[in-house]
Structure formats: structure tokens, C-alpha cells
């Protein structure tokens, strides 16, 4: 079984995909942190539905 020689283009694509993956992972962590920060806020309250039971 032989493998094709890796082209410079494949390295570039790998770098781009790796970078994008890391950015997305960072974004997930940031949104998680934001959620924790917002629900930990003293002013935070769960919105209640208006007119419930009408």
C-alpha cells in the first residue's frame, strides 16, 4: 500500500482546518463562559411567560 506524496497544498489546507478548529473550540469555550457569567449575575432572573394560565 502506497501513499501519495503530500503536496504543499495539503499542508496549507491542514493548517487552515486546524486553525479554524481551534477558533471554533475557543468560541464554544467563550460562549460557555459568557453563559456562566450571565447566569451568575445577581440581576439575572429566568423570564416568566406573561399571561400564563389565561
Amino acid at each position: 500500500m502506497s501513499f501519495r506524496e503530500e503536496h504543499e497544498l495539503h499542508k496549507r489546507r491542514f493548517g487552515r482546518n486546524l486553525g479554524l478548529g481551534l477558533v471554533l473550540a475557543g468560541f464554544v469555550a467563550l460562549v460557555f463562559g459568557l453563559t456562566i457569567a450571565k447566569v451568575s449575575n445577581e440581576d439575572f432572573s429566568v423570564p416568566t411567560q406573561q399571561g400564563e394560565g389565561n
Partner: protein
Amino acid sequence: MSDASLHQASTAQPGEGGFGDFFALLKPRVMVLVVFTALVGLLAAPVALHPVEALAAILFIAVGGGAAGALNMWWESDIDALMRRTRRRPIPAGKVTRDEAFAFGITLAAFAVVMLWLATNALAAAILAFTIFFYVVIYTVGLKRWTPQNIVIGGAAGAFPPMIGWAAATGTVSIESVLMFALIFMWTPPHFWALALFMRGDYDGAGVPMLTVTHGRKSTRLHILVYTVLLALMAVGAAFTGIGGPVYLIVALVFNALFLRDAVAIWRRDEDMAEADDYRVEKRAFRLSLWYLFAHFTAILAEAALAGLGLGGLGFGGWA
């Protein structure tokens, strides 16, 4: 690079750009200024955000600024290819296609505005959206190739970040944030005109109606002096407002004196003198202008920190 090789390189294939090429579309060096001034606006505000919210706000302001940069490069790829300073940018260098840059910029712009809204408030997001619109549509598409006052008007786009930072923390626009806006707005013209003086030939060749091209270099030198005087009056005057104080006053006096010295020297020189010493004074003024802005915003931050420690004003009655 010859015209032939430039043409060859500019035929980029879709999907071949690397991560760094797309990052370069965000104008990372401009982003540093955006991040720094937005951070000062956010930290100088009287309302403290949760650190994660502050981090998110700065990040999304930076992404919004970067998106505007990508859209600017999308529109200006034709003249970027003609100027020595910009011909290595991803589109003229053939790394990224124009369509990719447009899609990248517009997606990031929408993403940044929505995320800033979710992370902070609607006003901050609205100012960010307006900033992107102003930079891309009003400045890049509308005015840059039309009027020699392009730098003056375009400077407004770069002046919004501290206002966005302040709005992210407080949910309001106030006199302090308007003063920070005014500081960058007034600083931009002499900063860029100093650059235009020693980057001679670049703008001429690209057909951008810079003041140096339309009104001549003598007039540009006078404009630098007039704007620097106005800037100095405003910058020193700001010491007696809510963002100022004794630390800021000292910094403002020192840096405005230095900037005025260089502006006067530029005004008194002619092209023969400038060429004789390879634009030494113009280059010095440009470098100083970068330190000038950094010093003023650091001083604003220092005053906010002192006020937080109960040391605001330091006996200078009526300040802050």
C-alpha cells in the same frame, strides 16, 4: 514584482488560501489599535463588566473591525495591487479570491454584531454595525476615491472603538466616550498625511485623491500643522473633563508639545529639504503619532484606575 507576474499571481483559485491569509484580511495591525482603544473605553467606563463579558466584548469588537478590514480589501484589491505598501495583501498576492474575501468579511461582520449584542447590549452592537457600514460603504466605497478629505472623514470609523467599549459597559453614549472619539478623529489626519508625505508615489500611482496629490505637498504640510494645533487644543482641554486628570494632563502636555514641534518642522520644510534627509522629520512625526495615541489612552486608563482607588483628581478640584 513585474506587472506580468502580478497579474499571474492575482488569479487565485478558490479555497486555496491558508489560515494566515484569511487572518491577514482582518488587518491585524489595525486591529491592535481597535482592541487597545476599545479596551480603554470599556475599562474607563464607570460600570464594571464581568471579566468574561469584557473579554467577549473586546473580541467581538476586534472581529467586527477585522471584518470591515476584509471588506475594505475586497473593494480595494485593484488599487492595492498598484501600491508598494499594499501589493502583498492576500487578494493582490493571489492567496485569496475577491469573492472569498467578501463572503468572509460580510459573514464575520454579521457574526460580530450579533454576538456583541448578545454579550453586552443593543447600543454597543448598533454602534459597531454603524462603524462597519461607515468604514466600508461611506469611506471605502463612497469617499476614498472621490474627495481629498477622505482621511478626515474615514478617521471617524477608526474613532468609534472606544465609544463601543464604553457603550458595551454602560449601555449609553456620554461626553467621555465622545471625547475619546474626538481624540482619535482629530489625530487621524496628521497621522496619515505624515505617512502620505514620505510614501510618495504610492497614492499618486493608484489614483487615490490624497491631499498630497490634489492640493500638493506644501498644502498637505500646512494641513498637518492646522490639524495638529486643533488636536492639541482638544487633547489638552480633555484633561479638564471626566476622562482627564493630572496624569493625563502631564502626558497630554508632553506629547502635544512634541507633536506640535514636529508639525511646525514639517510645515517649515519643503520637498528639497525633505528629500535631502530622506523625510527624517516626516517619519519621526509618523512614529511619534503612534506613541501619541498610545500614551493618551494609557493616561485615560490610568486616570480611571486612580479614580477607582479614590485618587481621581488628586486635589485638582472639579476634575472627574
